[in-house]
């Protein structure tokens, strides 16, 4: 007769331990099982968070172990919120965030809509389109610096070819007015496929019967698009926006590789600025306050957004 694994484990439990366990309630047993995970979660996530909050009220500098740590109250928060340079990095982040989301949603949805049509080579095109998101951001950043190179860059050459401009006459990553767009273009190139895949999943989840019913009702394609496709894909789109929004709010690697935050501080996003404060200037207390502010911002915005997402889903 075959013994099932649970019975086998029960038989293998030493009698003394079995007697002890027998007296435990279900709740206590549950705690024994989840305890290690809860402990790890507290140690790895919650404790560092609380510790960061505490550090944000001090003048602690990790590279100055011999210096006395003093409580400075809200002064770190006050300095950050009244620092004009930090507001400039916030503006740069907002510009990057908004434009990447707008472009990725528009292009991603359009691509998904096209790919969703049945045509020859559909699978091949899907694979080709998703290739950029499979690359490492460091690699992408590096090769786009070559593409943007004024003298030998393909990007400048193509722009020059279509506009008649001298390719060497402009530099995407050295010009203050162009650099914010340079990073938007690269991020859009890299991550539009991600939005496309999510939209594609949404489009494929719409039953054909709904469109067939609409056809019977003589609804035009345009009406079908606005009353069936868009509402049914909307939760997927919103999910994609949430993922990309959170990712781009903390964007670091790609932009560092592309522009290093320059020219000047034109593309210095908050995460780059935070890294400089924390690990180059070593102002740990100040950087902790900065991190707390960013955390609260992202958490707050994400919470509002998730509520909106749930409402859309409920409809």
């Amino acid at each position, binding site marked *: 007769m075959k013994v099932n694994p649970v019975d086998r484990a029960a038989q293998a439990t030493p009698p003394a331990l079995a007697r002890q366990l027998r007296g435990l309630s279900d709740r206590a047993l549950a705690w024994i099982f989840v305890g290690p995970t809860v402990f790890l979660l507290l140690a790895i996530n919650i404790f560092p968070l609380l510790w960061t909050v505490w550090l944000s009220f001090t003048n602690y500098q990790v590279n100055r172990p011999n210096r006395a740590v003093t409580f400075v109250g809200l002064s770190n928060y006050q300095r950050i919120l009244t620092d004009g340079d930090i507001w400039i990095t916030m503006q740069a982040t907002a510009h990057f965030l908004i434009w990447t989301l707008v472009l990725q949603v528009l292009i991603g949805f359009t691509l998904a809509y096209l790919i969703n049509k049945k045509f020859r080579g559909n699978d091949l095109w899907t694979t080709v389109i998703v290739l950029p998101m499979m690359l490492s951001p460091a690699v992408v950043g590096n090769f786009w610096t070559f593409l943007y190179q004024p003298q030998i860059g393909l990007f400048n050459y193509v722009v020059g070819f279509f506009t008649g401009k001298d390719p060497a006459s402009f530099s995407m990553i050295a010009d203050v007015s162009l650099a914010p767009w340079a990073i938007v273009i690269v991020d859009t190139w890299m991550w539009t496929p991600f939005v496309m895949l999510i939209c594609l999943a949404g489009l494929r989840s719409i039953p054909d019967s709904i469109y067939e019913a609409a056809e019977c009702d003589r609804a035009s394609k345009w009406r079908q698009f606005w009353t069936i496709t868009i509402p049914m894909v909307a939760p997927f789109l919103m999910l994609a926006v949430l993922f990309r929004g959170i990712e781009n709010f903390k964007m670091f690697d790609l932009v560092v590789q592309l522009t290093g935050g320059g020219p000047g*501080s034109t593309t210095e996003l908050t995460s780059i600025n935070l890294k400089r404060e924390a690990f180059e200037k070593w102002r740990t207390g100040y950087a902790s306050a900065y991190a707390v502010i960013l955390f609260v911002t992202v958490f707050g915005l994400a919470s509002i957004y998730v509520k909106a997402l749930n409402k859309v889903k409920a409809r």
Partner: protein
Amino acid sequence: MKRQSWKVALAAAVVGCAGAFSSSDAKANELTLCWAAWDPANALVELSKDFEAQSGIKMKFEFVPWPNFADRMLNELNSRGRLCDLMIGDSQWIGGAAENGHYVKLNDFFAKEGISMKDFIPATVTGYAEWPKGTPNYWALPAFGDVVGWTYRKDWFSRPDLRAEFRKKHGRDLAAPKTLAELKEIGMFFQGREIDGRKVFGAAIYTERGSEGITMGVTNILYNYGFQYSDPKKPYSLEGFVNSEAAVRGLQFYKDLYDCCTPPGSSDWYMSETIDAFKSGQVAMQMNFAFIWPGVEADPKVGGGRSGYFPNPAGPGGHFAQLGGQGISVVSYSTRRDAALQYIKWFAQPKVQEKWWAAGGYSALRAVVEAPGFATSQPYAQTFLDSMAIVKDFWAEPAYASLLLAMQKRVHDFVVAGRGTAKQALDGLVRDWNDIFKDEGKKK
């Protein structure tokens, strides 16, 4: 079967322990030296083979590319890591490393081994070894003398057609510039010119934003216009010295040079990008640290007499050049301190220092650089000597990183991004630096 499994496990554990012990024995006989990944580091690897042969100690090396060098190594020191026994750290780290106990103080060791700091180029002792500056407290042995200087295309400068055109335009010979004004004139002369069918540009200068690049470039000009870090009579008093009228003119000059005479897209260039631009024939002149000169000389396209070298040109307010280079220190968290000191003792020997220079390392030992044949030993040797005689360094305060990043931001914002005026940039820098010194308790 069960018993056999236990035996196998026991045997594996014994073998594992034996392996661990033998590897820790091997490690006791090993030294790890940390430095930047660049040409001189490769020369040091070769040089250190002599030390390995003499001492029986195996040398390991941890080299990190320059843009990440400070990040990586300061993290290592701050976390009291034991990766490095010896550190060839940047000159500006000395204050922080000394005050935070990262480096071993070497005074007693120097006294015991008869190593005298008087035997080294004074600027390198001040720059790489002393903290506080100007006091006989030594935390490093000057290891690699370096300074910002200039390289130029001697072959282009000697073309009769270009020389004639330049003479006609400026009324003087096309030659290595002696002043900053001449440097700019030459830069403008070459900018956009076609040479051998290729468009070339005036000069490659430091503009890098992320680490220290643009600061290491702009200071060469600021010093020569009269910029000073603080009132010489009143330390940490910055107003009117950092942002003096002369300093403002100096910063404006650097921006003008960037705007008029550099290749398009050179908005984030440091050592490697400027070398590439020069070696690929894009520019007539290149600002860079002296460490690149042996590589230029050996390059098949621009070496072998095609390039010349000149010290940073003088300006209206003086004649200085930005100090580079590093000292070698013993990391205080090392468990192999004696072996590390043994390496420094070996490295300080005149014969080793001579070999160091011959291998491409810039020795800071006076016996080497003041030897009769030194100035003619390499085409760039005299320029190196001339440049080392006029050096000035950035702050070496414990808060140097904050001071540096503030300057990087202010200067890059003005020079490359064109935000505000030179006066606003330097006024902003004074505010930033004052805040930092207040945080440090050095200013009220």
